[in-house]
């Protein structure tokens, strides 16, 4: 762990004080430890300390078959499981050169945007609560509950969904699913108005966020910021638009960009993204194609239960995939997608066997965390809480 700065080794020599914030601090959203060097109320130096949640997922992946890695990816960024599933599945599909049927792609977009809404709602609720606005938290979690019910409907799980599989989806969405999502999508813009009514024009919220934790566009790029943190600093980049994957090129949406670079700008970006996401959910519902949800690749995709129980050939493939996995041609890919927090990238190296040789996850929170020192140094201690909330860190994603 980081050594304490030398200034405290000899007391009385300097005016600064070292303050330990976390890992059990409520505003750190997990187990993030910050070593703050403060002069009165001003932060002179900030050092993030991570690793408390390190579980060695990358090492574990190397000992699993390709299809067994999918449930592990849920546990990295636990607020957006579907996004992780998608990044991993796309990377393996790229290694295999596998074509995904249109319905599976559209379902992936639909679920991804619902995941983004889910993640942003948790961020909005906790961020507002950190800054003293309790009500927003309750409102956000009310809608988040609906989204989690949709996840439960399609996958049987509220958080660790593992719904996307290599080659398609795990299951057909159940009857009545689209109608329920449609009802939610019609109602949700009104809910966003409610949140905005509580926060956007609120003078206390503006005082806590405007001009706080400034990050310039040059610093944001140099420090590797991504997602809304980067867009809040005026850099127009969104992988859904710039490098479309899984059929995002069929959707119309705007990328909200703000140039102020402060906490309020990042807040506005994310709230606008909520509206864009619900627009994409509407488009996905309206244009949902018919057809299969799995690729036609019996050696890679598990057969339907019905077929597996009635046809010998399907049973053999099922047995083979479960016991031996499937081999993936040697090579390497880096597949990046836009998660709610920014660029989520999977770098997978295959040596031609049934287990990945190396899986590396490029976590957006790990990249965004490096901007924290730049944002906070020179500011007040109370603004550190606002800054942490504004980059939306998820510690599972940082420590992996």
């Amino acid at each position, binding site marked *: 762990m980081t050594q304490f700065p030398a200034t405290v080794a000899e007391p009385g020599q300097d005016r600064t004080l070292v303050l330990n914030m976390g890992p059990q601090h409520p505003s750190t959203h997990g187990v993030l430890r910050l070593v703050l060097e403060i002069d009165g109320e001003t932060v002179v130096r900030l050092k993030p300390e991570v690793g408390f949640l*390190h579980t060695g997922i990358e090492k574990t992946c190397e000992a699993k078959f390709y299809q067994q890695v999918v449930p592990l990816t849920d546990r990295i960024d636990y607020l957006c499981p579907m996004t992780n599933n998608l990044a991993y599945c796309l990377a393996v599909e790229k290694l295999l050169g596998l074509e995904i049927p249109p319905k599976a792609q559209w379902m992936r977009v639909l679920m991804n945007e619902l995941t983004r809404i889910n993640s942003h709602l948790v961020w909005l609720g906790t961020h507002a609560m950190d800054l003293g606005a309790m009500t927003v938290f309750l409102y956000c979690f009310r809608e988040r509950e609906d989204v989690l019910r949709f996840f439960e409907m399609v996958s049987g799980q509220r958080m660790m969904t593992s719904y996307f599989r290599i080659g398609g989806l795990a299951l057909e969405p159940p009857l009545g699913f689209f109608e329920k999502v449609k009802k939610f999508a019609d109602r949700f813009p009104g809910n966003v108005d409610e949140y905005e009514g509580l926060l956007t024009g609120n003078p206390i919220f503006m005082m806590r966020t405007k001009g706080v934790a400034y990050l310039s566009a040059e610093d944001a790029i140099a*420090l*590797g910021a991504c997602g809304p943190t980067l867009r809040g600093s005026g850099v127009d980049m969104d992988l859904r638009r710039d490098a479309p994957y899984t059929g995002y090129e069929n959707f119309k949406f705007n990328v909200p960009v703000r140039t102020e670079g402060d906490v309020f700008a990042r807040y506005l970006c994310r709230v606008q993204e909520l509206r864009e996401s619900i627009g994409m959910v509407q488009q996905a519902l309206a244009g949902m194609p018919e057809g299969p949800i799995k690729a036609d690749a019996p050696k890679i995709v598990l057969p339907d239960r019905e077929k597996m129980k009635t046809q010998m050939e399907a049973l053999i493939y099922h047995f083979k995939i479960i016991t031996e996995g499937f081999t993936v041609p040697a*090579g390497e890919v880096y597949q990046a997608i836009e998660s709610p927090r920014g660029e989520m*990238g999977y770098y997978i190296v295959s040596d031609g066997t049934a287990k990945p040789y190396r899986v590396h996850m490029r976590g957006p929170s790990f990249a965004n965390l490096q901007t924290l020192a730049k944002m906070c140094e020179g500011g007040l201690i109370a603004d550190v809480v606002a800054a942490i909330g504004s980059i939306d860190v998820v510690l599972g994603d940082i420590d992996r």
Partner: protein
Amino acid sequence: MPLAPPITDIEQLKPHPALARLVEWNASVVQAVKFDRDELTIWVEKGAIREVCAILRDSTDCPFNYLCDLTCVDWYPSEPRFEVVYHLLSIPKKERVRLKARLDGSSPAIESVTSVWPSANHYEREVFDLFGVRFTGHPNLQRIMMPDNWEGHPLRKDYPVEGYR
């Protein structure tokens, strides 16, 4: 959709802005290239990695101004054992390139790119922690994930998955 065979001929891949810039600057740093699954990989001389990164970042036609990811692959027991992998992105041109540098297993060390991109700081610490690759010139090369008194580097291939008992 069958996979196209990879292209490894430098002349054929010249149009890619990253390779064109590197060959124009100093062709001897490029050891090998591969274009596979729509992704370009360039193996570069390990001693020149910092200059290569700076050249690509400051390139005028296609500035690779963003370091997406920095990681390492262990090819134990073959030599050179380690490959440090850099994923670069050009935000204005939406181009990507992957740089690789090969390192020996006995005392793996490479120059840090923190002076080119400050964002490399945490990535290099992570690679140092989990692979034991040293980055010379890094401002704060300490373990980041594992405890300070941890023995070994967990992502090396000779480190057992269940750890040492």
